[in-house]
């Protein structure tokens, strides 16, 4: 049977190049603060991780020269942006657009796995728990950013909508419009 052609967008080269030179420590600090905000607003996400709440996850956007190391720490998460991987329990790899689409509920994790757009390594149970917990949390990452941007929230929302429209990457949670 033929597959519908809905290719997952890849990151623009410029972003990959920028990340090669950008200092990563401030990025890690901001992402940690951001993830703690998410933890505060979505406590269910970390509860759902259950026994996997103390595992270390590597999220690897394969089209970028960095990986994210997530320590959920039972609801006080820490995120590190790294150029190289570090010891971990589970690793989830795929194009950034696939990972963001997964977070926003636009893509189905198993479908991404069947199509080989998503690769899981290490502790499969931990990776599954994270995926299921994130799917239930109904996150909207762009909205979370806008919420802490004070007077810049409105223009920021506009810019995000523009980027989303042009790139086909799910930066927000589509209401009732899953891609597949």
């Amino acid at each position, binding site marked *: *049977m033929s597959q519908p052609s809905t290719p997952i967008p890849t990151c623009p080269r410029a972003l990959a190049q920028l990340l090669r030179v950008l200092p990563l420590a401030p990025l890690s600090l901001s992402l940690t603060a951001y993830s703690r905000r998410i933890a505060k607003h979505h406590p269910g996400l970390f509860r759902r991780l259950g026994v996997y709440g103390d595992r270390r996850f590597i999220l690897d956007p394969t089209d970028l020269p960095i990986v994210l190391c997530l320590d959920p720490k039972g609801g006080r998460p820490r995120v590190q942006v790294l150029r190289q991987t570090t010891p971990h329990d589970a690793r989830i790899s795929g194009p950034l657009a696939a990972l963001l689409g997964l977070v926003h509920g636009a893509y189905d*994790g*198993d*479908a991404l796995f*069947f199509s080989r757009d998503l690769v899981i390594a290490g502790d499969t149970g931990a990776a599954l728990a994270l995926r*299921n917990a994130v799917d239930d949390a109904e996150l909207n990452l762009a909205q979370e950013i806008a919420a802490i941007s004070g007077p810049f929230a409105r223009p920021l929302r506009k810019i995000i909508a523009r980027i989303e429209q042009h790139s086909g990457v799910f930066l927000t949670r589509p209401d009732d419009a899953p891609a*597949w």
Partner: protein
Amino acid sequence: MVMEIVCPAGTPAALRAAVKAGAHTVYCGFNDETNARNFPGLNFDRSEMRAGIAFAHAHGAKVLVAINTFPRAGEQTLWHRAIADAHHAGADAVILADAGLLAHAARMHPDLRLHLSVQAAAANADIINYYAEVFGVKRVVLPRVLSVPEIAAINAETGVETEVFVFGGLCVMAEGRCSLSSYATGLSPNMNGVCSPASHVDYHDDGGVLDARLGGYTIHRTAKNAPAPYPTLCKGCFSAGEKTGHLFEDPVSLNAEALIPQLLKAGVTALKIEGRQRSKSYVAQVVGNFRAAVDALAEGRPMPKGMLTRLSEGQAMTTGAYRKTWR
């Protein structure tokens, strides 16, 4: 008559997505060994179940609670408590497989509607009528080993409603009896609610070739860029004698969409979608697709063509035993 769409929900978000997408009924389970999808990060705690049922009822949908594993001797309390909690939460029915649990539910919760799980593998009218007479079972979920004429023959001989799977992962053995997962991992869907438990699954990328291991056994190797299947033994690729191939079943998903008119004629009441382990994105798309199909059928319109290949295991689909001859 509009056939009832019975839709899976592994999380409260998936339940809401299913209801919004038009599911008449949603089935789900508690986050423990009492249900056959006891996966990490999945299922409902007690308060989520109460809220989910209230949400579904407020939108005119029903909720069935699957308590369809087989209790271990001496530990029945966990299963008994699950039935009582589902009843108090307002469940429209519980889906049970074990005869002892059915007896307990019939005795202790006489006004709770009982459905017979596919895990009971009730595949003929005699045994279905027995469950109805002895325990008051109102509906049976038929195993995925029957052809459409066999389903019609069963319906002709029983007053019990029948529910059949129309989409999702295929369990190809007599359900509730398959020991393949136990053999490789010590855990099974029947006793622990997990076939091929994630804790025993290992993936290795070998130069683009995906190696899937279950309990240390390599069960298939997927070529670079080829669609990957679930790591279940029944879909494994084995060598026997001179031949290498999928011994039990190809890694494909069930899609009986095209058979819905025949299933209606065969007297089927409800169409079940597999996939409590799937995301709300899957749920919304599959439910929307099947709801549109049954609505079109009820109104005498041509059924819309679905676009569900991408969501299917191995990205390939089959009509399963409904139209199948066994190897």
